[in-house]
């Protein structure tokens, strides 16, 4: 592959340096790998979204009339597995984190570029296996793989789904490992821990969870597969095992996994709020420590998913208490973001609109988490639509909002083109309205007692009206997500060329050209400033046209 394909007069960037399939599939450039991830993640987001739409359509009427019960069970299982393991967990770290962390700390690449590529290949292999599982008839364990249903009773493709999740787990572990080493070892001169952008801190916290938590779910999933294949008795009550042990091992990872999904989003929102308020973050150290606090305390609360599962009363009390501890750093973050806006000079570009959405929806999601941590309430609302609404407020309202904020914020840097601002704002508004219409009714449904994972609720037709609202919201939400997909693709060709720093933002990534060259920096940068030094940046955010 020749390298000299850059036309005379055109600047060489990571995008035009080489062309051809091979130059992408064998790349070790963190920016190109980020784009490879972007392609995979977008693909799986729409697959998972398609399943979600089918679920919502089925629930439009109380009777199970659109699809069969088996099909419905597969739909919600695969919606969960695809969205969690192939979209939510990798999305921000593997796309935006991969692209930005080396640049933000002033490095040429991640510490282990080839392991970074290996992570992507593992992700793709796992994704292919997941697709095979879907095409070969699907799997209906629920994304949680609860035993003994998954080990002894179901006839579907449990093993391939389990292997897919296992492999995607290792992709996630290697990404996290790479980030930790990079942040420790590759910082530019002068880039002290106290000068790191919060985006980097957030990924550092996330990586800790990935490295410590993921192996435990990996072994739990391996044991499920072994038990299914060889009828071991580790989780099987008729052979002396305890099914709750699986739940413990599963949630030891899968609760912290929620923070793998949301914490990088918190990093994005910190960057965006500062930039569009033209302000330093309020309480930098508290924000950084809150991220680490969430990562660590997040490991102490897992059994709050098991309050009615038959665990000991005393364990339930401990886990409920600890669950409230993890709410404190989250509260600090929300208040500090809000305070960052105080006396700022605020503009309402698309990323900021998404950040507003994030703060509001994450607040609601977080506060309803307090309902679930309250033991007495949890008895009633766990395993109902209340839980479904709660975690969608965190994951879709929180994480996806932040992801969209980040995509719009850094799209000029990634692609070298501006997205159309007007369309961007419209899409943000549609997403916000669609989201709330979809998921707010589900809180009420949950308190009314509608259990989750129900295909047919004809015994309780009183649930219908709220389900109709929810389905209506889901279609609006779908439009809101398709729109950016269209105009991002459009902008790659027709968008205005982006300046190096379209937002007049602080941070090393805005000091280099858009799109960056392959090694990011022509010469080793030396950092002499604090993060978010908006007092030293002269201009305001350029007004959109």
């Amino acid at each position, binding site marked *: 592959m020749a390298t000299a394909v850059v036309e005379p007069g055109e600047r060489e960037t990571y995008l035009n340096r080489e062309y051809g399939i091979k130059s992408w599939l064998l790349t070790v450039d963190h920016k190109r790998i980020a784009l490879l991830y972007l392609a995979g993640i977008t693909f799986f987001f729409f697959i998972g979204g398609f399943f979600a739409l089918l679920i919502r359509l089925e629930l439009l009427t109380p009777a199970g009339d659109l699809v069969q019960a088996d099909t419905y069970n597969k739909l919600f299982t695969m919606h969960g597995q695809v969205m969690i393991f192939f979209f939510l967990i990798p999305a921000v770290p593997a796309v935006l984190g991969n692209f930005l962390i080396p640049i933000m700390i002033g490095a040429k690449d991640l510490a282990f570029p080839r392991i970074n590529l290996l992570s992507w290949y593992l992700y793709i292999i796992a994704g292919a296996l997941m697709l095979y599982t879907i095409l070969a008839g699907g799997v209906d364990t629920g994304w949680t793989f609860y035993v003994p249903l998954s080990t002894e009773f179901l006839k579907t493709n449990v093993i391939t789904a389990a292997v897919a999740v296992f492999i995607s787990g290792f992709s996630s572990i290697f990404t996290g490992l790479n980030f930790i080493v990079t942040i420790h070892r590759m910082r530019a001169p002068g880039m002290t821990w106290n000068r790191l952008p919060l985006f980097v801190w957030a990924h550092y916290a996330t990586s800790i969870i990935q*490295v410590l938590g993921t192996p435990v779910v990996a*072994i739990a999933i391996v044991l499920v597969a072994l038990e299914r294949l060889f009828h071991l*008795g580790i989780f099987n009550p008729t052979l002396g095992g305890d099914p709750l042990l699986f739940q413990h091992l599963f949630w030891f990872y899968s609760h912290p996994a929620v923070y793998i999904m949301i914490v990088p989003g918190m990093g994005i929102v910190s960057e965006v709020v500062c930039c569009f308020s033209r302000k330093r973050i309020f309480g930098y150290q508290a924000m950084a420590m809150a991220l680490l606090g969430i990562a660590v305390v997040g490991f102490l609360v897992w059994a709050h998913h098991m309050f009615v599962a038959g665990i000991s009363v005393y364990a339930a009390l401990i886990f409920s208490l600890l669950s409230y501890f993890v709410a404190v750093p989250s509260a600090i973050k929300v208040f500090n973001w809000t305070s960052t806006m105080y006396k700022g000079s605020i503009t309402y570009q698309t990323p900021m609109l998404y950040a507003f959405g994030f703060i509001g929806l994450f607040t609601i999601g977080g506060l309803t988490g307090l309902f679930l941590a309250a033991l007495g309430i949890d008895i009633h609302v766990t395993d109902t639509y209340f839980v479904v609404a709660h975690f969608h407020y965190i994951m879709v309202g929180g994480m996806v909002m932040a992801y969209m904020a980040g995509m719009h914020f850094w799209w000029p840097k990634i692609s070298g083109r501006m997205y159309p601002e007007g369309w961007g704002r419209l899409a943000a508004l549609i997403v916000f309205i669609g989201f709330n219409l979809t998921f707010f009714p589900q809180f009420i449904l949950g308190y009314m007692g509608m259990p989750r994972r129900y295909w047919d609720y004809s015994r309780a037709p009183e649930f219908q009206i709220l389900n109709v609202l929810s389905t209506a919201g889901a279609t609006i939400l779908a439009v809101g997500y398709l729109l950016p997909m269209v105009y991002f693709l459009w902008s790659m060709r027709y968008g205005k060329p982006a300046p190096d720093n379209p937002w007049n933002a602080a941070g090393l990534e805005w000091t280099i050209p858009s799109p960056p060259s392959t090694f990011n920096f022509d010469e080793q940068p030396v950092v002499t400033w604090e993060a978010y030094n908006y007092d030293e940046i002269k201009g305001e955010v350029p007004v959109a046209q």
Partner: protein
Amino acid sequence: MHNSPAATATHEAHQNPAHLHHFATAQQQKDAASLGMWLFLVTEVMFFGGMFCAYLVYRYWYFGDFGAASKSLAIELGAVNTAVLICSSLTVAMAVRCAQVGKQKAMVVYLLLTIALGLAFLGIKGIEYREKFVQHHVPGQASFHLDEHIPGHPDTPVNQQHAQVYFSLYFAMTGMHALHMIIGVGLFAFLTYQAWKGAYSPEYYTPVENAVLYWHFVDIVWIYLFPLLYLIDRHP
């Protein structure tokens, strides 16, 4: 802790062919590889940790049955295997030392010795596994039967199901450990070939060093597996 390694960028970079462009110095690259390896070992600790958690729970529940099932293991073979692994830990440590002082040939010899010891361990493990099949101590099979009594209670026969849980854990834990051994032997085979070709020098031996860290970790897992699986309630 501000110790930004890139700050010390000097012309010593690029004198080593294995030095990668995105590291400012060879030392930075070495430190990165070492930290990366240790983090990987952390994931391994948690991976085995899941099984140790299962072991802890069931040992607490089925204390006597675990003791009885443990008695059916061949303690001699377990002890010999422990010694074999400890010897291999010495040989890999010596291999690194040889790399450090530039003794190429001795390094190859020590690596080969390690491979031999690793294979010996796997062979002995294989004999033990075979015994389990012969004696019908394999969980999940209809023919499973363990003829033991609870230690200290000569007239209480072992509960067959609880014994199966023990053997499930035994096979899962030692099996996963053996899998790590096989990967390790493969790694060392590759490293021996590289070392024989002269790829490592006192300036650059990171792959050897990291593979050796991995091997020591596998050794430590066994150091715990041996008493936990073989040595419960052995006393008469």
